[in-house]
């Protein structure tokens, strides 16, 4: 079951690399949040434990409702144009993503022969990390950077579940808090920058260099 959900997660990554609308990113974030919650809730369903539910529920709340709503609010408040500003063609970006994923899956498969890990969640998580970095590298809009960063965090999360079957609770909560703070700060930063610089391109941030 975890493998199926991980593959769905990978598909969402393909979608995010081809869409050209900011709204698409937000939708993907929501989908990924749901998938991640499902992945970590599965082991706790059959021998039902209330403690096992707490973390997925928090994850669902934060990743599916709070953060996307907050990003939507920023988009509305600041009246950002609804298309992303890619620096390379969408098609070449997709090719890059596919190539990266192939390499990662092959490498993970080789790795799995010597160490014990779930190949598919591991590779999906790793892909999400790299693709999150790609999104930050090849998009010009600051709000898309936030989304890329969140995808990267999702990747780390999935990666963690693949490596250790049961992460310590505190670490997971720490991850959540981390994400929340980052989004919060970036939201504030964008608000501030939009009032002073009158633009949302990272290129404009270059002028802030010391």
């Amino acid at each position, binding site marked *: 079951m975890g493998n199926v959900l991980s593959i769905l997660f990978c598909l969402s990554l393909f979608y995010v690399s081809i869409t050209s609308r900011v709204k698409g990113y937000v939708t993907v974030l929501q989908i990924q949040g749901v998938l991640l919650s499902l992945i970590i809730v599965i082991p706790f369903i059959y021998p039902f434990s209330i403690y096992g539910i707490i973390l997925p529920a928090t994850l669902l709340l934060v990743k599916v409702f709070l953060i996307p709503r907050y990003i939507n609010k920023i988009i509305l408040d600041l009246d950002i144009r609804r298309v992303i500003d890619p620096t390379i063609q969408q098609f070449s970006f997709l090719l890059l993503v596919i190539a990266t994923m192939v390499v990662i899956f092959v490498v993970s498969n080789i*790795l799995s022969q010597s*160490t014990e890990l779930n190949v598919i969640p591991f590779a999906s998580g790793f892909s999400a990390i790299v693709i999150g*970095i790609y999104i*930050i*590298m090849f998009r010009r809009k600051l709000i898309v950077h936030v989304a890329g960063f969140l995808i990267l965090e999702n990747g780390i999360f999935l990666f963690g579940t693949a490596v250790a079957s049961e992460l310590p609770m505190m670490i997971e909560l720490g991850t959540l808090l981390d994400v929340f703070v980052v989004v919060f700060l970036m939201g504030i930063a964008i608000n501030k920058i939009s009032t002073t610089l009158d633009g949302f391109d*990272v290129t404009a*941030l270059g002028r802030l260099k010391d």
Partner: protein
Amino acid sequence: MNNSLIPGNYLFISAFVIQFLAIVPLTILKNEKKAFVISNFILLIGLVLGLISTLSSKLFSFASFSSNDTLLFSNWIRLDGLGLYFLFIIQLVAIPTVIYNFSYLQHYIDQKRSIKSFVTFYIILLISTQFVVMANQAILFLVSWEVMSMSAYLGMLLEKEKEEVQKGSFYYFVASHLLVFILYIFFFLLHHQTNSWLLSDYHLTAATISLIPILFILSFVGFGIKAGFMPFHFWLPQAHPIAPTVLSAFLSGVIIKTGIYGILRTFQFLKPIPEWCGWLILVVSIFSAIFGVWYALAQHDIKRLLAYHSIENIGIIGIGIGIGFIGSANNLPVIEVLGFGGALLHTLNHAIFKSLLFLGSGVIYQNLGTRNIELMGGLVHRAKYLAILFLIGSIAISGIPPFNGFISEFIIYTGFFQTAKELKNYYPLLMLLFVVGLAFVGGLAVACFTKINSIMFLGTERKEVKHFHISVFDYISLGILALLCIVIGFYPQPFIGIVNKVISNGFVAANSPSALLNMNWLSITIIFSSILFGVIVLYFAKMQIHKRYGRRTSAAWSCGYENQSPRMQYTASSFADELNTIPKTILLYNKKVDSSKRVIPKPSSFESHSSDFVDNKIVLPGYSLLGKIISKIEFLSRTDIRYYIAFILVMIIIYSFIAFLWI
């Protein structure tokens, strides 16, 4: 757990707790002065308690040592001979400086300057320095070391708006970090070899003997930067003058000694030590001693001059350590005892008289507002007792009997002769060279202190001094230090006993014959007392002559002139000019004489200046070269965050690739 120190244990811990508590009033009380006085008082009590507990420990209570005296139920803190001895030095010097604080920081309070943070850093500095010498765990040692360095740095920034303060403290900051980096490598290598973090476990086995040269060089460079041996001394004359006097006294008296502590501690790890290590230390030390004092002679800034004298004295201590290393390499405990004994005793002595001189110069600085010797003069008429106290420190530092500097240098000289006697072959000739070198250092030191004492205290005033104020706290703190100089000079037996005990605990086998105790110390006491008696007799004879025949008085340095003005006096630069011209390439000593020989002469002038060779020819060019190399890779510096993300990705890929190959 060996709790053989139980009676002293509680005292020890409570002493540190009280020292920590001294920070509390600074955070609670609003009133600057009240907070400072209370906290300083608590600190003083803590230090006195600490000194009492150190004195009541095994080192001083004439009992034999057991090697693992631990504290606080763990072996992270160990009180062995060497640690206790340095703890003793730290607390002994800290007490007078803390007393001095009462009057010194009062000036800053009068200037409406906030001193709370300075006092806080000062307290942290004192405590962390004590922890450095007690730590028996490498990480604890490094952390205390770092806290010590950084609190001293932050304390230096008391007058941070001055440009010279920013420059000097930056030198200190860079040097401290450089040496900590070296120490990290040193301790990780040791850990790698012995699989332990405890300093007491670091004994190299035969299998790891090939590492000794590397470990020795790392330790000598790392701790040598802190101690201020000659090629690594560049930070010392920059940082000491700009620090507040209480801090520079502590820095010069104690903190650079932690470098000596480190080198001695390393010696205990690295047995058997090869003989070339001893020679290396000996040569570096003799250079530090000679050029340290020569640079000092060329300075006009009193604190800078004293800082160079610290380098000289570190050199003398290093000479003792070098002899000890040679003795150890040749398996001759007699030489070892004399070498290390001289070094350890000189460490204590230098801590005492250097603090005395620094605190004395601080009093003058507070009253005159300048550190330039050329602007001082005639101070003996303003402050007679200060002049006497300063003179005691000067005689002691020059190694003239009957004060303490002579005793330790005497032991080192004996070490030279003993080495020449025990190891025949070519040793006598080499030792003769070093003896001449050390004697030469003594001669230059006398010249230098003649210069500052005569220029500062004698003659007439070069600068108008409205009122010269010395508080009772100044006299107490200077008096304690001067008294110690006298006591160790006239009656060195107890201190020799302590040093001997330290050496037999961890340096040489405990039952080896002690050359230190066998020296005829009683005759030294008798000779010194008779010198003192002779001086007193002569003084009374002089008084009698004055009474009978009257006394003719005239202005000082007047040399037969009638109406002498302060400008006509002998100056410090003209006094030292002859000596400074000899090594002028190394001293970078240049003079600017501007005299016109026309019919109607214009005003003529004379200027002399010396700057540090290592600083100007090696450190600064090296620094700018580094800057040039780094600017070559500046093309990587982009304005856009996306490039940095790409760099991160590239690095991740490289690391993953390496990890992949590894598996």
